[in-house]
């Protein structure tokens, strides 16, 4: 046996190599003390020292990594309860001064793989939708998104799939960016793309405060959401009961032709509002009634309706305005009714809500600027 051992020793002599542990740690995506302090050198010694003390707490023994701290900040329960503030936002604009107050859309979600998903959408704090999906009828995209948040983030931190991408700042808060998912996809022509789901954790608390997606290294437009609060509850917790009725709002019925002003006034019981024969060069194309006699509505369309490559060439979809007006607030769902504020226009997702001359007017247009201009230009329609 010794003869065999000697032969093997001759074949592969022992060497005194030492390896590079720092490279291992770096490639594993784990930030260590030295790796983090170096980039901070230019920030200023005092700030760096304070930051490092907060981050690493050297008096507490061995410093946990960013991923370890992020995992420690996550609860173990199976029920996700999260409030997300979308990047998409609206505004309350003073028609006289133009002063804007931002409004945000927020989604509050309870998700349990066993019980389903309840999603409450609020805009400016007003509930717009309150929907429950049972587990077997969950839309695929919602399931992926929230199952990812419910368990994917935690699992990625646990099993080593998560990678620290670097540091940054969001909403003024220093953060560590963590990649929790990464896919490589190919176009039919073979072009390679990398898709990543990323989470920003506070550098102070290590709690997740923002989620977003990256395509080929770039954040997408309006793909991110700020995490206002997140908790993982025990199996029997959470609120999965829908509290409010849903009345979908949206869509504008436009009919061909134009009704005379007196007909429109008769429908509404008062003089309708309009933007003139043309508004910013856009002609009034159609006007008519919409809704029922019990809840009369008048709609007006400024734009080129029949321009889809035939009569008038390619359509200019940036240049249209639709007005919908009614004297009856009951026409609108409760959440929309909240948006009518005298002297203001509330802008939300290409719609503006205005109250004027006893009429409630919804303006649909491509841009906030156009909506605001239309809100200011509303005037009684002459006989």
């Amino acid at each position, binding site marked *: 046996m010794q003869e065999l051992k000697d032969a*093997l020793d001759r*074949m592969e002599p022992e060497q005194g*190599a030492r390896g590079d*542990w720092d490279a291992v740690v770096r490639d594993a995506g784990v930030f260590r003390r030295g790796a983090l302090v170096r980039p901070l050198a230019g920030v200023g010694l005092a700030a760096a020292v304070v930051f490092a003390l907060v981050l690493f707490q050297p008096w507490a023994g061995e410093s946990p990594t960013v991923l370890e701290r992020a995992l420690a900040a996550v609860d173990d329960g199976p029920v996700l309860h999260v409030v997300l503030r979308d990047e998409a936002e609206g505004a309350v604009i003073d028609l006289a001064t133009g002063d804007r107050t931002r409004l945000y859309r927020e989604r509050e979600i309870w998700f349990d793989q066993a019980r389903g998903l309840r999603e409450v959408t609020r805009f400016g704090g007003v509930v717009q939708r309150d929907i429950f999906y049972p587990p077997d009828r969950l839309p695929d995209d919602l399931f992926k998104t929230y199952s990812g948040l419910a368990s994917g983030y935690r699992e990625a931190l646990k*099993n*080593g799939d998560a990678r620290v991408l670097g540091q940054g700042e969001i909403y003024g808060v220093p953060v560590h960016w963590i990649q929790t998912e990464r896919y490589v996809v190919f176009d039919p022509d073979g072009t390679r793309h990398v898709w990543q789901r990323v989470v920003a954790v506070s550098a102070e608390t290590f709690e997740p405060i923002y989620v977003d997606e990256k395509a080929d290294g770039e954040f997408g437009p309006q793909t991110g959401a700020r995490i206002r609060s997140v908790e993982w509850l025990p199996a029997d917790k959470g609120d999965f009961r829908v509290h409010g009725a849903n009345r979908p709002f949206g869509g504008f019925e436009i009919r061909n032709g134009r009704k005379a002003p007196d007909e429109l006034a008769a429908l509404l019981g008062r003089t309708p509002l309009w933007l003139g024969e043309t508004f910013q060069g856009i002609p009034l194309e159609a006007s008519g009634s919409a809704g029922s006699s019990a809840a009369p509505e008048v709609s007006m369309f400024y734009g080129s309706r029949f321009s889809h490559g035939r009569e008038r060439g390619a359509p200019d979809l940036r240049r249209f305005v639709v007005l919908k007006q009614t004297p009856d607030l009951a026409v609108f769902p409760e959440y929309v009714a909240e948006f009518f504020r005298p002297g203001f226009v509330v802008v939300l997702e290409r719609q503006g809500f205005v109250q004027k001359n006893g009429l409630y007017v919804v303006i649909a247009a491509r841009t906030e600027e156009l909506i605001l201009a239309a809100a200011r230009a509303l005037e009684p329609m002459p006989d």
Partner: protein
Amino acid sequence: LAELEALYRERYPVFLRVARATVRDDGAAADAVHDAFVQAVRNRRSFRGDGTLEAWVWRMVVNAARKRLASADGRGVFPEAPNDLATDCCKEEEGGDEVRAAVAALPERQRLALFLRYYADLDYAAIAAALGVAEGTVGATLNAAHAALRESLKEAERCRS
């Protein structure tokens, strides 16, 4: 993480030696050990403690080395050994080359079991864990490797004399 770091610093030469013996290339061996430890660091939370940490890491090192060897694809240093190696005694072999040739003729599992036994000084349980086989299989595998090697080396000696 501290345990992995200690293991790396203390046993790196041994990991590297087994990887070198497996892939027969300095750079590829270092890469294999590096890859294995990167994987170990990332997946350290999945280590359940039902074996030793070292055995758990050895399995990753062995797999990383196997992968490196497979990816070498023709550049590997363990070419397919001729079936009649034992009787091909007229070749000039010097130093460790005849051992190398004899080892190269072994099936992969026997080869790895030998390296883990003699270079890493692992016991049968750790070798079994590293290779993903039953502990009883290790003894049989090593016996078969010993017998084949003794036969090859005896044949080489006979040729030299």
